[in-house]
């Protein structure tokens, strides 16, 4: 989903990268339609129903595959990844980079308690491969801080979709920001987060080494929601708990491939308040299947 200040309708000019064109209040929603885990192709606006705060909206456009995207690889390089785990992660990152197309761009965010990487948005070229190869593992896990930074670090080039692949092998132990701050930021971001983890999600049971700040009086010291499932649900992405037969590289490549099969729906909200939280509900009208899309947006 994108809340576009200056951009709205997608137009593809022959020989050029497709770009959005403007109206002030247009909303776009990044949607994955699947049947039996397989993406459904060939859908048009007539196949979707979009409700904004419960009010059915008129879909202006539906785009498929031809919108370039910017991929942020947000990779946990804390101490526990050291050794073979890091090598596998680096291989997976290279696999994701190899899967993007010429018009797509990539940026690298590594994190322990400290953020690092290659913040520039680049096509898949040597500097990116060098940065992936240079990653080393040490330190605690600032997962919330890194997820917040990943949501904020979006490619400034107009008309791009944003995909974040967020990998962690554990749970937050060292962030300054609390989980609700990240989940709130997700409501303001147009990035779709696919999280990959090697551990089954669980509630964070202790403060551990986190700051213990609460950013509102009604917030809880330890969030009751499981962080990664909540984050991917809010952004319309997915969660992969990777302990099975697939290699990490296969998972990363699959995410990039799947992201390309998503639809981008655009509409101008009508019959709803201009500001505040807008819930979004996307359904298939003409065919059976499942939808993944973000839950809403903040205005």
């Amino acid at each position, binding site marked *: 989903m994108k809340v576009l200040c200056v951009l709205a309708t997608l137009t593809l000019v022959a020989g050029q990268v497709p770009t959005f064109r403007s109206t002030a209040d247009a909303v776009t929603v990044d949607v994955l339609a699947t049947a039996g885990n397989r993406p459904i192709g060939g859908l048009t606006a007539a196949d979707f129903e979009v409700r904004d705060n419960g009010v059915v909206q008129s879909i202006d456009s539906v785009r498929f595959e031809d919108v370039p995207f910017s991929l942020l690889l947000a990779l946990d390089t804390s101490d526990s990844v050291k050794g073979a785990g890091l090598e596998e992660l680096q291989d997976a990152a290279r696999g994701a980079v190899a899967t993007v197309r010429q018009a797509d761009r990539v940026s690298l*965010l590594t994190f322990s*308690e*400290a*953020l*690092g*990487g*290659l*913040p520039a948005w680049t096509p898949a070229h040597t500097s990116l491969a060098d940065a992936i190869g240079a990653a080393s593992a040490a*330190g*605690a896990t600032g997962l919330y*801080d890194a997820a*917040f*930074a990943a949501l*904020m*670090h*979006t490619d*400034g080039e107009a008309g791009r979709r944003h995909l974040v692949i967020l990998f962690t092998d554990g749970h937050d132990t*060292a962030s*300054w*920001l609390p989980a609700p*701050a990240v989940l*709130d*930021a997700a409501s*303001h*971001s147009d990035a779709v987060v696919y999280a990959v983890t090697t551990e089954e999600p669980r*509630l*964070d*049971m*202790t*403060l*551990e*080494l986190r*700051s*213990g*700040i*609460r*950013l*509102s*009086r*009604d*917030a*809880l*010291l*330890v969030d*009751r929601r499981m962080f990664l499932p909540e984050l991917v649900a809010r952004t319309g992405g997915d969660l992969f708990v990777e302990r099975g037969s697939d290699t990490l590289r296969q998972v990363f490549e699959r995410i990039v491939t799947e992201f390309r099969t998503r639809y981008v729906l655009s509409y101008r909200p009508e019959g709803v308040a201009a500001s505040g939280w807008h819930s979004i509900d996307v359904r298939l009208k003409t065919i059976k299947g499942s939808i993944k899309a973000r839950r809403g947006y903040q205005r």
Partner: protein
Amino acid sequence: MRTASGSAKRKISMSRTVLAAAAILALSVAQIPSTANYRALVAAYRESPDAAIDRILAIPERDLGAAIEAAARPQSNGGWPAADLVAAAMLHTDAAVHLIEHPPGPAVDHLNRAETLADAASDRSPEYEWFEREWTSIAVTLLNQTGSVTRASEVARRVAARRSPGWDVFVRALDAEDRAVRAQLYTPGPRADGNMAKEGFGGAKKLFEEALRRSPQLLDAAVHLGRMEMVDDREDRASAAFVKAAASTRRSTAYLAKLFAGAMAERRNAFGDAEAHYRRALVVAPGSQAARLALAQVLVRTGRSLEARQVVDEQLQRAAAIPIIDPWWVYWRHGKAGVAALRAEIVK
């Protein structure tokens, strides 16, 4: 590369690097023993540590004695202020680290110089006791690495005897805080004041209060006390502790106090105050990650997402160019954070 951050430090803005390099080049070997030139070298270290370390290593150690003696004199007799003394102590410590990693060389002599300077700083101002305290734990490790085991024990004993009355209580309080926080478990239920039992916090808080009563200059204790009060939802007490700690001469203490104060303001929905606290924290420690993320987060909350993105991007650019040690990362490693963390307190 001398320091852990050596290669990246070279990417610091050209003008700053050139100025620092010029200051160092201006010091000929013949001039070095003079107090003024030694002081210029220490000032250059705060801007560009690698070049200054190279320079100090090139000076015969025996030639430094008079300059160091002059620096350590009482201020009324031309001695240096405490802030400059601790910078000089770190310069010699870094020189010792280099010599230990690249033997042979007079590493122990440099540590002895550093000890003289750290002592003088602590004598000059009780507020700099923190430096001597943390430097000692590093020095003991380094001396042991050189094989000077007896000397290491001597340094540890001597500094222990000089510690302020509140120090031992402070150490016990840190342990109590650590145990209390780690022992808390998520408690299901709709508790509006947080959902942890927070048992055992009272004991740690009392110890921090006692440490501050015995040694009011021990403002690190005020940060930890404020955090425990914050977690315990005693907002007024927490804010008072952070205000007190924000006056610390220690960079990381002042930084953390402002950072926590910002979070307290956010809890009251005082977003303007929170933003101001975070920006002040960034003035104290310009490269720090937690303050910049906190600032970005409050910008998002106040509908300024575009600014928030710029703030995060700035942090990522900084992190890619210069290794950063955020004081928040060493909050739990009090006195055990190593040379790099202590250097981060000194080098700009």
